């Protein structure tokens, strides 16, 4: 609404004031009307404004104020009553609304203010979160870098690759200008520049290890900022710019032995390498904490990777060494085998070759001794005989020993009489002892059984050797031999700590002690006695004629018999006692032994069972036939007896195990019968064993019998015991042992 502002001159001065009031009121009204419009417009625009009701109130208040001022315009001149009323109404309304608004604002303004505060608070929070996000992101990136680095480092087991990769990756991740690794030298006194990032082949700079800066770095596991001027950091040629910050960290060089499962070996490692990292010189970059952490982690990982590489190198080296050793051992073994084979061949040949002439010499010399000789000749022959006997013994000893050594000697087990053995030994030694005027006593304990099972010949050898030595080294007094059954306590001799004999039901341990009053032995010499080729008393051996092998062989035999032998002596001049313990079997208790067991004693107490054994007897003499049949029936056999060969041949079947053929029948060719019986059975194991019964045992009969395939010859008349042993023999071996 445009008002003309032309000023009329005829207006009075107070009309001027009125005019100004008029104009101001007009403008106020205008403003009052436009403000709500603006408010409405902007409120409409923004959707989130929460106090609409307030605005409406405010708007109403403003509009009414405006209306009031507008109506005021009409009151300057004469106005009607209506205008006055309207004016009053609008004023009242305005008063009401403005008071209401004022009241309302009291509530609202604090709210509005607090909104502002909240906004500020949220902004701060957002800023903080942003910061933290930044941190986490950096950490995550660091982690990623570490993982990647580790992966790169650990993807190889080659030491050089590991180190090179470390430097390369670190350089890339952290954007380094230079990265170097200083390794300790072998002497441990210097650090040598081993790897750098930029130079391909670093020249071997060395730096003494005792520098303070190096010690500082080595004393902590953290990455340490060092001055770029230290010798370790002078890696780049001095440039125009300020060198970037340098950080150094220690890299533990772990050894295999340092690995403990539960804690990281911080204290036990002594050797460190030094890793130096340099930031680019022309940047203003600083080392950040997370970068330092990254460096520390990488350094640790490198240590682990290096030790893995070291372990691998070690194991490869060990494996190569082992292979070499294997080859060498194999060669040595083959050589040894060849040597043993050569020796065995030699022995096998020499055994025969040496013994044959020896026997010839001995035999012929003995024969010569029997002829008429002059005294000087007799003396000569005797010397020859003695020497060759000695030589023969020596040869036997050596050959025996070598057979014993390679374990090819086997004991010849048999039943023999112990009492007889000791008496024989006594008889052999008595003449020599009596010449030297020495007494010899023998005492056999009553609980020693008469018979035993073992190697009689070798036992005799042991006994003779021990007793012979006793006599040899005794000048006066005598020797006493005691033999008894060793009980468990006496078996565990303190002198023989590694001898653990285990008595059993089938065996017993024979303990023989031979005490002499002779020269005695120095306790220091005792261990040497049983060693071969060692003579214990060089003075006495002038006449001993021993090879030094005797006791060594005895020891071997005793060991074979699962026993032990030792000598006790209190010293020179106090005599000595030789003790040996051997394991012998109890006769009659060894059932099921597969060894050729030929009992020389008067039969076993055990009755072998032949019950049901089918046998055939052929004898044309009725009495003889009856007696033989009765004999076999008494032993439990199932006997079929025949008088004629034809009947016999017809009746023999594969069920019959033995056929007894009388070959002393005149006019009957028993041999032909034997042949025909053999022919009757095509399969070998069906054939019965054919044994000849005869009254005469001349060589021709025996030969004939064996020629036709008979397995034995038995002399008639046969006793029960004899028949029993014949049957056992036949069943065990398939032939009669003594006939062969």
């Amino acid at each position, binding site marked *: 609404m445009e008002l003309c502002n032309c000023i009329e001159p005829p207006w009075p001065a107070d009309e001027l004031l009125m005019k100004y009031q008029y104009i101001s009121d007009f403008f106020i009204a205008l403003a009052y009307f436009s403000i709500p419009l603006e408010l409405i417009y902007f409120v409409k625009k923004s959707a989130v404004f929460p106090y609409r009701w307030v605005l409406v109130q405010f708007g109403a208040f403003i509009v009414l104020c405006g209306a009031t001022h507008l109506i005021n315009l009409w009151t300057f001149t004469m106005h009607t009553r209506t205008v006055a009323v309207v004016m009053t109404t609008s004023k009242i309304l305005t008063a009401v609304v403005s008071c209401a608004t004022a009241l309302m604002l009291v509530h609202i303004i604090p709210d509005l203010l607090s909104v502002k505060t909240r906004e500020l608070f949220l902004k701060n929070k957002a800023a903080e979160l942003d910061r933290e996000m930044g941190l986490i992101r950096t950490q995550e990136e660091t982690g990623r870098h570490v993982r990647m680095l580790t992966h790169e480092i650990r993807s190889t087991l080659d030491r050089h690759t590991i180190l090179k990769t470390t430097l390369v990756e670190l350089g890339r991740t952290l954007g380094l200008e230079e990265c170097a690794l200083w390794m300790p030298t072998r002497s441990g006194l210097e650090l040598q520049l081993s790897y750098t990032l930029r130079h391909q082949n670093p020249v071997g700079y060395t730096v003494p290890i005792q520098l303070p800066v190096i010690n500082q770095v080595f004393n902590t596991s953290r990455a340490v900022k060092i001055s770029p001027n230290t010798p370790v950091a002078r890696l780049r040629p001095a440039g125009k710019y300020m060198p970037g910050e340098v950080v150094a960290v220690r890299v533990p060089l772990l050894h295999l032995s340092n690995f403990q499962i539960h804690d990281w070996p911080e204290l036990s490692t002594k050797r460190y390498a030094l890793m130096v990292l340099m930031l680019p010189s022309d940047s203003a970059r600083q080392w950040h904490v997370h970068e330092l952490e990254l460096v520390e982690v990488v350094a640790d990982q490198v240590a682990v990777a290096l030790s893995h590489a070291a372990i691998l190198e070690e194991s490869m080296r060990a494996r190569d060494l082992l292979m070499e050793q294997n080859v060498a051992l194999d060669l040595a073994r083959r050589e040894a085998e060849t040597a043993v084979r050569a020796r065995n061949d030699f022995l096998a040949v020499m055994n025969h070759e040496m013994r044959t002439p020896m026997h010839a010499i001995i035999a012929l010399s003995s024969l010569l001794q029997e002829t008429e000789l002059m005294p000087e000749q007799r003396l000569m022959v005797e010397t020859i005989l003695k020497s060759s006997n000695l030589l023969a013994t020596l040869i036997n000893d050596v050959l025996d020993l070598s057979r014993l050594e390679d374990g090819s000697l086997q004991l010849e087990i048999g039943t023999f009489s112990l009492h007889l053995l000791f008496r024989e030994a006594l008889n052999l030694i008595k003449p020599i002892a009596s010449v030297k005027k020495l007494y010899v006593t023998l005492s056999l304990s009553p609980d020693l059984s008469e018979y035993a099972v073992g190697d009689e010949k070798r036992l005799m050898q042991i006994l003779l050797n021990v007793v012979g030595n006793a006599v040899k080294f005794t000048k006066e007094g005598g020797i006493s031999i005691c033999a008894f059954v060793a009980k468990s306590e006496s078996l565990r001799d303190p002198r023989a700590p590694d001898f653990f004999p285990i008595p059993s039901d089938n065996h017993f341990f024979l303990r023989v002690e031979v005490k002499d009053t002779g020269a005695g032995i120095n306790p220091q010499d005792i261990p040497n006695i049983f060693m071969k080729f060692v003579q214990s008393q060089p003075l006495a051996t002038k006449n001993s004629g021993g090879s030094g092998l005797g006791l060594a062989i005895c020891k071997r035999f005793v060991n074979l018999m699962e026993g032990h032998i030792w000598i006790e002596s209190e010293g020179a001049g106090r005599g000595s006692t030789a003790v040996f313990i051997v394991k012998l079997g109890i006769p009659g208790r060894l059932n099921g032994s597969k060894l050729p067991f030929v009992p020389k004693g008067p039969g076993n107490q055990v009755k072998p069972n032949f019950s049901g054994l089918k046998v055939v007897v052929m004898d044309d003499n009725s*009495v003889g036939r*009856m007696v033989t049949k*009765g004999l076999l*029936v*008494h032993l439990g056999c199932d006997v079929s007896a025949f008088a004629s060969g034809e009947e016999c041949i017809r009746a023999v079947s594969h069920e019959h195990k033995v056929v007894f053929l009388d070959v*002393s029948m*005149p006019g009957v060719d028993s041999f032909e019968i034997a042949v025909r019986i053999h022919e009757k059975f095509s399969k070998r194991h069906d054939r019965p064993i054919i044994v000849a019964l005869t009254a005469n045992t001349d060589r021709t009969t025996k030969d004939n019998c064996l020629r036709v395939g008979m397995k034995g010859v038995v002399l008639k*008349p046969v006793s*029960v015991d004899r028949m029993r042993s014949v049957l056992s023999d036949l069943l065990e071996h398939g032939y009669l042992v003594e006939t062969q």
Partner: protein
Amino acid sequence: MEVDQLQRSFLEYTTSLFREGFLDGQFGQLQMLQDESNPDFVVEVVSLFFEDSQRILNDLSITLNQQNVDYKKIDANVPQLKGSSSSIGAQRVRNACIAFRNFCEEQNADACRRCLQQVKQEYLLVKEKLEALIRLEQQIVAAGGAIPMLNEFS
């Protein structure tokens, strides 16, 4: 008691037979073969021996009484007798047979006849002894006792 007495006289008789050489160890073996499963073994064998020997001796008599002595037949028979007697343990009969055999080889008819007589004599002696022994055994058994056995034979 009677059984004891009988057993004692049996033992004495047997021992005397051994001592005098009529019987040897083989007879002892035969006695050992006699047991519950074979109670009459000795009697059976002895009877068989008597039969056999009688037959052979008769044969030999006939053969030797011929003009032309068939030495082959003698050669066939004498070993039989020898075998039987040795099987039973009749020592003296066996020894006589051995002598007989030697002369037979020499084909000395007179000597053979003399030997035959010898053999016959020995045979009759041992037969008598054995029969007495068997009678004693039967008496022991009838009296309810067991026949004792000599353990050692020299």
